[in-house]
């Protein structure tokens, strides 16, 4: 049974079939293995069946299609590269990449639902958790029985997480947690939150906070013009008693959250290509169907310039992602290399969304076509997981050895 079968008919209001086809100008499929191709085609089919018919509706209403959490689990989108005994897929990093690409081809918000669960919740518990914590949470997170969120950003500390004020104080067998987190994907619907807070020595620690712990609330943030199908909220902690057994034992300091972000940013570098491909695909088809001055607009040089540049940029981004994936499989991808790919590919996708929007003329601003939705979504993607400029500074520091952050 499909995930949308339980929702009413009028919700499935998209009358158009999703005609998306992938584009592979440089035969990069030849670089992918059988599993990668099967994974990609499976997720593409799932998106066409479960996401495309409903996404405009949910995005329009700024509502999260929570029924998809289960479907994402069934298809295997949570932690594809985490070992199977811990609820993951046991696949390699390129498989993880192509899965994110296909999800974001559908919608960046749906991809975010999966990225957070897999890379920001399952991954830290897998990497830094005790065996008990792994067994307690990971299989349930992998199967979608539990939904998680990741709390790093604070109202006054976004690009500079080291300034965080959320803190824990020792209280015997527990810590007392105080503070607030902001812009947290999935938080209002999450069962658990992986929260980063400073201990009394000012050292960053990771904790697993459960939804029904006293003093913990997760109000929703309204009014987003971007990532409207993904739910975002705060995390507010007022003297929350978190048992010491819920602290992630195997990491201290900012490298904990930063290594999760590397994982998620890797997925975003691939995901953004999906959004770009969807915009290009729609623009290409529209340019051949729409006629002005007696011929298809695709026949005009200015339209061709747009389309030619789009596919060129997509092809470069695909190569970057593939190489990054190969390095990641060998355990050699550096955080700075991941930053470069995240920054380049998301910016590429946003530029393509804007050009594709123009090719669609007035129709481009409506939800008849996916382009404006992708464009608005990508404004978030450009900002979260390290802003466009912050990633530039990371590359700048990497090549000069000089820190320009402060």
């Amino acid at each position, binding site marked *: 049974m499909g995930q949308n079968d339980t929702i009413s008919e009028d919700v499935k209001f998209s009358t158009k079939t999703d005609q998306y*086809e992938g584009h592979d100008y440089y035969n990069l499929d030849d670089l992918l293995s059988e599993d990668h191709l099967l994974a990609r085609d*499976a997720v593409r089919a799932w998106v066409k*069946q479960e996401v495309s018919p409903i996404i405009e509706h949910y995005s329009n209403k700024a509502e999260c299609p929570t029924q998809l959490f289960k479907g994402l689990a069934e*298809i295997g989108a949570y932690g594809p590269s985490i070992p199977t005994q811990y609820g993951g897929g046991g696949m390699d990093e390129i498989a993880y990449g192509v899965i994110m690409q296909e999800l974001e081809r559908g919608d960046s918000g749906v991809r975010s639902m999966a990225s957070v669960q897999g890379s920001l919740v399952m991954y830290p518990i897998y990497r830094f958790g005790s065996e008990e914590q792994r067994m307690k949470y990971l299989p349930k997170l992998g199967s979608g029985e539990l939904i998680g969120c990741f709390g790093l950003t604070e109202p006054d500390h976004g690009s500079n997480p080291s300034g965080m004020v959320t803190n824990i104080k020792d209280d015997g067998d527990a810590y007392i947690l105080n503070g607030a987190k902001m812009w947290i994907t999935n938080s209002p619907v999450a069962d658990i939150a992986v929260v980063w807070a400073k201990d009394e020595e000012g050292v960053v620690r990771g904790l697993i906070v459960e939804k029904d712990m006293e003093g913990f609330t997760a109000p929703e943030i309204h009014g987003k013009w971007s990532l409207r199908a993904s739910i975002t909220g705060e995390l507010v902690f007022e003297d929350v008693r978190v048992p010491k057994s819920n602290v992630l034992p195997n990491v201290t300091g900012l490298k904990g959250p930063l290594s999760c972000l590397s994982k998620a940013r890797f997925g975003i570098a691939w995901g953004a290509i999906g959004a770009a491909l969807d915009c290009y695909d729609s623009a290409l088809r529209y340019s051949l169907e729409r006629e002005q001055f007696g011929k298809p607009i695709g026949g005009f040089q200015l339209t061709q310039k747009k389309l030619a540049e789009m596919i060129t940029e997509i092809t470069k981004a695909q190569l970057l992602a593939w190489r990054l994936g190969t390095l990641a499989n060998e355990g050699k991808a550096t955080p700075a290399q991941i930053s470069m790919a995240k920054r380049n590919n998301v910016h590429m996708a946003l530029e393509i969304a804007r050009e594709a929007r123009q090719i669609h003329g007035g129709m481009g601003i409506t939800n008849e076509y996916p382009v404006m939705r992708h464009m608005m979504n990508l404004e978030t993607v450009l900002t979260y997981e390290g802003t466009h400029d912050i990633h530039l500074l990371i590359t700048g520091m990497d090549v000069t050895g000089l820190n320009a952050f402060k």
Partner: protein
Amino acid sequence: MKFLVCISKTPETTAKIAFTENNTEFDTSGVQFIMNPYDEWYALVRAVELKESLGGEVVAINVGPASNDIIIRKALAIGADRAIRINAEPESALGVAKLIADHAKDEQYDIVFTGKETIDFNGSEVAGMVAEYLDLPFISYASKLEMEGQTATINRDIEGGVEGIKVDTPFVISAAKGLAEQRIPNMRGIMMAKRKPLEVIEPGDIPAPVSVVKYELPEKKEGVKLVDPENMDELVRLLHEESKVI
């Protein structure tokens, strides 16, 4: 129960069709291939469902070159237990049917499944020929299949209606829309498929009764002309002068 599912590879439905070698060969450059949807969505899934409820084994079989392995892996990811590829070019329906029957004759399959047709040549020939080689009953265009013991109750699509049939195993059945619902393989299935056996066997004698003389594309359809309902004279004129039907 033991089920054999015949799967074939076809061009993707949106593929641009062109020919080479003086119009005697299909031009595969730039064409994406998929598992024939009738084989995948209906035949294979129904076989897997029956195995899940009744126990047994689902074997997928394909006649084709090594480049077909990806669609065979997909069949394994969807739920077949093992697969066989007969290493030969599928040149004619009779050749394919003979090779499948050569394998199936000593294997005691309860049901041999195929799709009702492939979406490239739309021949609908292989299943009947397999049944003939194996001397088994053949039920075509099945849209429903239920088992009770060794007896199958089947609905088959016929012109203008549905025919209800009962038949005992073993038999050959070709699957139409409705027999099952498409299953999208998940990541676990894809990873498990890597460990399932895919046996490659070399072909025996292949009858080669047909050769392609030439392919032709159907004539391009003309666009539709819309005539204002007020303007009957124009309609009559077009029917008379342009399409010359009255």
